[in-house]
């Protein structure tokens, strides 16, 4: 490991406070460097090293122990040993990142607008329209926040219970940072000062037929407004255009979904006709637009108990999102090229 570079301090006539501040920053930078170095040298070999080691050891015959160690090395090459309290695994989401970045930059050519409306620090509740059968829109909003906002913040998306209970998808979502959508989780995250993304339409939005595209469903019962009022977090309305076309749902076979525990079973032009190929989303052109934050601190936490106020704000946010969608649709010439 290379030794961290120590930058010698200038010795101007600066007063002690300045010097202390500079030292503090230097210590912070060094600690950061140390942390990163430690993370990269955690002593876990990568998958290739593990495979090579196994091949070498195989000359002595295969044993349970070798197989288990190999498996464990492969597992930890893309998982960290610790997760946060919601099950987010930083290394696992780093592993998935290239795939999502490909989808973001090349497949859907996402155009993000208004990211300056996002708070640079502190809590914020991003409220977006939900569409696209599978929760890709949440991942793309997260990437927009991560890549297009100067503070490089990450956003915790609240995943519908329906997704959070599906086999395979549930652990995937949880490890990559999504959180089960319920008021307690949202409040806990906002109180920690995180950016939280929520889709108040819920299942009604993500599972709506293709003919109803870009028509917002009811925004739940305004639960997201109540949480924002209680925590004082600003609401940032967000409009996603393009996600409706990735899996155009032309029909539903709910008799198929019921035994699988799904609220709906989508039929798209490619699914289930083409089998696994049906899971490949269509390459529409996306845009993600953030609007001015709606500040609620003036109402105070008591506002959460006022159903009329809650409904009014909810309706206001909904119409903002609908207006942004309509504006974008009016300017859009092609589904595929924007």
């Amino acid at each position, binding site marked *: 490991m290379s030794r961290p570079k120590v930058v010698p301090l200038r010795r101007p006539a600066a007063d002690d406070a300045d010097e202390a501040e500079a030292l503090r920053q230097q210590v912070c930078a060094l600690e950061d460097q140390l942390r990163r170095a430690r993370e990269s040298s955690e002593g876990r070999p990568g998958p290739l090293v593990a495979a090579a080691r196994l091949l070498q050891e195989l000359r002595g015959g295969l044993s*349970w122990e070798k197989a*288990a160690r190999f498996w464990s090395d492969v597992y930890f090459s893309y998982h960290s*040993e610790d997760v946060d309290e919601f*099950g987010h695994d930083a290394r696992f989401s780093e592993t998935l990142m290239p795939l999502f970045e490909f989808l973001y930059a090349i497949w859907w050519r996402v155009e993000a607008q208004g990211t300056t409306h996002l708070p640079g620090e502190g809590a914020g509740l991003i409220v977006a329209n939900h569409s696209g059968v599978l929760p890709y829109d949440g991942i793309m909003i997260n990437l927009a926040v991560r890549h297009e906002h100067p503070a490089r913040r990450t956003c915790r998306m609240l995943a519908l219970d329906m997704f959070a209970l*599906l086999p395979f998808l549930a*652990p995937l979502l949880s490890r990559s940072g999504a959180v089960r959508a319920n008021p*307690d989780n949202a409040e806990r995250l906002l109180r920690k000062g995180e950016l939280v993304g929520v889709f108040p339409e819920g299942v009604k939005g993500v599972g709506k037929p293709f003919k109803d595209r870009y028509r917002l469903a009811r925004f739940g019962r305004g639960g997201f407004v109540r949480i924002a009022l209680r925590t004082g977090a600003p609401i940032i309305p967000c409009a996603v255009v393009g996600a409706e076309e990735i899996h155009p749902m032309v029909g539903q076979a709910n008799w198929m979904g019921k035994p699988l525990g799904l609220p709906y079973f989508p039929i798209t032009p490619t699914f289930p006709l083409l089998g696994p190929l049906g899971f490949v989303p269509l390459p529409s052109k996306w845009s993600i637009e953030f609007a001015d934050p709606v500040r609620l601190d003036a109402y105070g936490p008591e506002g959460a108990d006022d159903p009329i106020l809650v409904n009014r704000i909810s309706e206001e946010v909904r119409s903002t999102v609908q207006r942004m969608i309509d504006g974008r649709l009016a300017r859009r010439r092609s589904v595929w090229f924007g």
Partner: protein
Amino acid sequence: MSSGRLAVTGAASFLGARLLRRLAAERGGDALVALDVAAPPPALGVRHRAIDLTEPASDQRLLEAFREDEVESVLHAAFFTSPRRDVTHAHELESIGTLSLLSAAAAAGVKHVFLRSFTAVYGAAGQNPSFLTEDRPLPSGTGLRWLRDKLEAEQHAASFARRYPGLGVTVLRFAPLFGPGVHTFYTRIFDHRVVPMLMGFDPLVQLLHPDDATEAALRAIERRPRGVFNVAPSHPIPLATMIHLGTKIPLAVPHPIAYVAADALWATGIGDAPGGFVDFVRYPFVADGAKARRELGWSASYSSREALEAYLRYRHPRGEAGPMEATA
């Protein structure tokens, strides 16, 4: 603090024995009464009453013992962590035994009862919130006998706390213990080279180090807050990470098969747990320890991962020894 004695039921159980030892060191053996069919180590110098809670007249015998020994508070730790094949005996001990103990305690004028419980009483369900708090209503019915007995014990405790205001009741819901000295059905399953898990499911699990559990119970005995407390580590760990940290081979079983297979193995005497337990590796039951932090002033010093690592060091003391050498 108080003049009366502290009685410990299930004094030969893992947690009961550890607590008895710690309490004997702190208060002296004379301040304690061990209630168990098995005798405590004589070196502790505690009084021993061999009362079997499953006997029909056990409440009468308990009442006499409480009066004679001037028992002032009771720590009730006579519970099975692992499922029993003799379900009637388990029911008599856990549900009916708790009822007899509580009625004897109320009749003898005992001031406080501490009940050992489990975070598993919340049940593992898809609808569970990410953090289960103490005010979460407990499931009303369950097909799992192990769980039903624990739920009934908690119901008895809650109803006695309501009916007898003079009797303080503290319920401590411990997360699954994992660490040095722990031998339960789930550590037995974990000790195999191949550990089954469910295909497509990887819930977060909480593992509580026994030292943390003891510390929390001692803190509760000292402060005597009434009500229910989750005793849980701060950080959960995904089940797959747990299996790989132990260098085990995970065997992914499709869940429709898992329930049937577990039941069949249990019925034939090979399996370690009936099919009802499959829910606990399918859905999370992560308890929120905020109330214990606030009111008991206790928080776990080991995370789930550290508890697991302590267990692995205990099972494989040489560190480098894989599962093969150690089990041989």
